């Protein structure tokens, strides 16, 4: 790795449009850690919503786009375990389904260079103390695709434990799904809300002021329920906590 690695940020369509604080914090954090961050403007979406709803052809078109847009870069980093999970676990399979061997190779190639934020920090940059300061009571939800697709294990927690001032409390039944599940949240809204209510209850039990996760999509769901309950808990992306410093607090 060169002294100043160039990182192509994959903001993800959801963050870009609805939750820009997560990719903004990712840029701030990576630049603070000495990376050169670029944002390929042609990027749009990883296609996961299409793929997981059954629209494989639409998903495959976005696999092609992703592979082309990010082909030139040594490192692709996204503040989303779920979107990176789709790139790494679904893209090549979609190309194979479409019978496109060239795309399959290209998709595998770029997937091997695509990292979820905590993986990139811990595995590639080799840091766990990113110099963050965040004096709040925090609990962390690991999110299913980070945990069971990407196997990031406790990397996000290693990063959070090193944050100065943080009061990190364990979330009961942390590894259980929050019930978001992409279009599942709409198609099976009742079960989704039942799962989310239990997750929200566990969050409240911790007495945390802030719920942190590596996926804004899950947080939109849990946070949406907590908000409706006026629970007094806010949600933040992991990147926002890690970007927070004494001089520039989140």
């Amino acid at each position, binding site marked *: 790795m060169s002294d100043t690695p160039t990182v192509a940020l994959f903001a993800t369509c959801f963050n870009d449009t609805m939750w820009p604080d997560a990719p903004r914090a990712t840029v701030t954090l990576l630049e603070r850690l000495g990376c050169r961050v670029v*944002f390929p403007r042609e990027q749009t979406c990883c296609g996961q919503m299409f793929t997981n709803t059954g629209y494989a052809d639409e998903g495959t078109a*976005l696999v092609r786009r992703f592979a082309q847009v990010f082909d030139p870069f040594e490192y692709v980093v996204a503040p989303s375990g779920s979107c990176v999970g789709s790139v790494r676990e679904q893209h090549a399979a979609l190309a194979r389904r479409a019978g496109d061997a060239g795309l399959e190779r290209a998709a595998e190639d770029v997937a091997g260079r695509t990292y979820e934020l905590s993986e990139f920090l811990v595995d590639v940059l080799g840091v766990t103390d990113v110099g963050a300061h965040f004096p709040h009571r925090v609990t962390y939800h690991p999110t*299913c695709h980070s945990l069971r697709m990407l196997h990031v294990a406790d990397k996000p927690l290693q990063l959070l434990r090193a944050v100065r001032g943080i009061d990190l409390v364990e979330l009961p039944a942390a590894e259980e799904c929050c019930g978001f*599940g992409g*279009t599942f949240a709409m198609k099976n*809204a*009742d079960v989704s809300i039942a*799962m989310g209510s239990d997750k929200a209850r566990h969050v409240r039990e911790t007495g945390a002021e802030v719920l942190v996760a590596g996926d804004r999509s899950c947080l939109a769901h849990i946070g949406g329920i907590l908000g*409706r309950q006026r629970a007094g808990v806010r949600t933040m992306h992991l990147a926002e906590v890690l970007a927070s410093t004494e001089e520039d607090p989140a």
Partner: protein
Amino acid sequence: MTLQTTSPIFLGMPSFQKAAKDALRNTQQRRNLAHATSTIRAKRAAVVGEVDRWEELRVAGADAKDEVLHHLPHYLEQLEANLVANGATVHWARDADEANRIVLDLVRATGSDEVVKVKSMATQEIELNERLEEAGIHAWETDLAELIVQLGHDRPSHILVPAIHRNRAEIREIFRREMGGVGRPAPDDLTDEPARLAEAARAHLREKFLRARVAISGANFAIADTGTLVVVESEGNGRMCLTLPETLISVVGVEKVLPTFADLGTFLQLLPRSSTGERMNPYTSMWTGVREGDGPQDVHVVLLDNGRSHVLADDLGRQALRCIRCSACLNVCPVYERAGGHAYGSVYPGPIGAVLNPQLRGTGSDVDKSLPYASSLCGACFEACPVRIDIPSLLVHLRTQVVDEASGRSPEALSMKAAAWMFADHRRLEAAQRGATLGSRLLGDRTVRSLPGLGAWTQARDVPSPPPETFRQWWARTHGYDVEEAP
């Protein structure tokens, strides 16, 4: 794809979404399921955790099943030859109707008007009990949980623990109300202590065991190289059924074959730990055809297809036939835990049911079309599966099948196509974002509590209005693009 089996009990089942919505209101069931699944999850985690080479066992289990599935005709013929050589009679059934007719004819030939049953998913799948009852033959379930379901005129809601949706107090009521009508009644002073309930079932069943001349079972495993059938159980009721009657009829799905006796070594480690959370189950019965003067002297094996060939023909879907019916995926599934088993409209509920039913029955009915979507794709099922069935990938595969079979003109399909058009070019996305942020600026920064078209979301979840500035607008303002002009 045509519907391969008809299922009268589950015919006209509503979609999973509708059934689950109703089931969620059943607070007693939700409490029962949350308690039962969390207990068994903890037990399984403990006994799986103590096996250092669990991952190697899973791979060995998956490999043995894949070997069979890739050479199924060969192993089935070997199994048949060894069964026949040992004095058993082998029957082949293409579907539920054929299997039921074969069994019915065999029972009739004995002159008996009742059979005792070992818990069996294959006979549940073909609804054998109902067919036998129609023909005037009583089929007595002898597994405790199956007995509870049968006495309660209920449907099973779990593969291993069919009465998991019932608690002790409900079981006591069912026993007191129903036992007397079909045999020895429950004692008047029956309490809801587990030991008392088990004792009542034991006394009730004992007279049936001692009287029965015909038993019907399934099999957990069928060993091709020896012709041995294996039943794994916990209560000893299976052992009674498999040894006391003169006639034994076993209905066995064709995917139950294992190549060699040695393969049992793998599966007898995988199954109990994954299923009941025990290191070893209390009773494992094995029989190889007929042994003169010992056990049933008239032994029949009905090899059942009932849609399995169809599953086998799908390169990706085929792995669902590795399933050993352990229920680990049900017990770890957050959707199953809340919706319960009945919402899946099949004797195979939970994550494995969500992939197996649409494959066995096709995706013609409302419930089978909806099952691939009955999952948040959290991946807990794949992680727990002892034979490494990648259920999340299969669900996505089946969703694609459902979409491909639909008209393509549903509101969902049209909105997906519109979104795909937008994402095909970043300039279109940027234009759409400008519209959203503009709307947001006009509204002011506020939380949205209801929005037309978003009712499914906002019924219980707030949503923020779009931010005043998207990420890429911020990037253009703070960093700029190298080549193109900022949006």
